[in-house]
């Protein structure tokens, strides 16, 4: 039985990539709120304008965890500008789709990367 999610979502939920923290991360983004059922914290390391590493911790449903995991895979190796261009749609598509009411989880992923890169920009002005 497939459950409500695609096989891709279930794979990323059960075997999430890049769970953890980055000590002295170049940028950290936190979005969501446990009271609303999900919260994501994204850590990025940026080297020469490229995201060299990404890790996350997420409190949330299956789609939230899978979106976080997929997002970290997608941004690693990308330039900051390329990463900023990632939309929730890209994340959802990469997961072979999300149920309509779970789209907000991919939105959270999009917002997390923007928040982390905003943090990076603040810490590394110019």
């Amino acid at each position: 039985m497939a459950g409500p999610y695609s096989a891709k979502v279930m794979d990323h939920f059960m075997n999430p990539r890049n769970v953890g923290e980055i000590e002295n991360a170049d940028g950290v983004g936190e979005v969501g709120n446990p009271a609303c059922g999900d919260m994501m914290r994204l850590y990025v390391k940026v080297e020469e304008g490229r995201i060299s590493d990404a890790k996350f911790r997420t409190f949330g449903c299956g789609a939230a965890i899978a979106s976080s995991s997929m997002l970290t895979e997608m941004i690693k190796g990308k330039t900051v500008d390329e990463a900023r261009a990632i939309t929730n749609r890209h994340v959802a598509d990469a997961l072979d789709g999300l149920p309509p009411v779970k789209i907000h989880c991919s939105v959270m992923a999009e917002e997390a990367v923007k928040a982390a890169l905003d943090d990076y920009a603040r810490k590394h002005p110019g």
Partner: protein
Amino acid sequence: MAHIFFDHISTTPLDPRVFEEMKPYFLEWYGNPSSHIHDQGQAALKAVDAARTRVAGLIHARPQEIVFTSGATEANNLAIKGAAEAYEKRGRHIVVSEVEHFSVMNALLPLRNRGYEVTPLKVDSDGKADPEDVRRAIRPDTILVSVMHANSEIGTIEPVAEIGRIAREREVLFHTDATASAGHIPLDVEAAGADLVTLSAHNFYGPKGVGALYVREGVRLASQIDGGFQERGFRAGTENVPGIAGMGAAAAIAKEEMAPWAGKLRRLGKRLWDGIGATVSHLHFTGHPVDRLPGHVSFWVEYAEGESLLLFLNVHGVMAASGSACSSNLRGRDEEDLVASPVLRAIGVPSDICTGSITFSLGKGNTEEEVDSVLRVLPVIAKRLWEMSPTYLDYQKQKVQGGG
């Protein structure tokens, strides 16, 4: 893989004996009870009447006081809207507990829009309503009090007999939604002082698509589904004959076997409760510790979200429910559904952590081995989710700082 069904509160497997009693009404005796002038219709009518007697027997009512519906939701709608409309001239005030099911709460919405007033009854931290609050809430224009028999999410059994007595003293109708309890614990409409009682077949090993409303003799209701003259005018529409026959069979079996079922479920429930309490930290049980449905174990786990818990449990073959709306929000109206359940809010669980609530509801087919399986996997799953959670990380850091 294991197939451990611990979600009997959402629905129960059909008892094979019930299915056997339904079968003749699918292929052989398929008549419409309204066409009882001929053999086919007559057989159908007899089946419906026999089922009416059996369902009445389950709650010590008389057959003519049973109105068959399509389920508990429709029965609750009929009770609330039907009584409100029929007794409109007497008053437009209704008293309900704040832990009622959506099918009571939302049935009140169109009434509120038409000017009815609703007084919600607070519950304590175990989810119990206070009968004295009912006494205080009743006004001269109160026509109906509705307090459920047992809560499906947290298992608490409400003091319906006391509430019924107060309602009767004040000459106010008393409705109790016994969806979660009927067939599992005794319910006597006299002892409960109930005028209207909601029953659902699929919650006690009967079929889906059929329920009943007990309507005390003499109580009026405005019918909500109008049409032909079925169910003495309370509810129109061709009867779901196999479903009704199934509800009758399930009621007869439950009446007979309820006591041994409950004994077994209390044992299994205690084993699960004690085991979880001993092995999972950051865990908080919900509902009344003693006055609760047999085999019902509900709790919430800090730093873990309900749907993720359920998904992992399901991967291990364990099927359960989350008390938070989250588990069913895949088809919810919008993101607001993501908030914690009204019941958990009512018992005072802080909304930023209660999305991790779980309801294990056991049934007569479950075993000790299944309980032990769940006791093995749950701590592992919780740990796994904590390790992914930013809130758990913060908690641990604080603890270290606090300790250091």
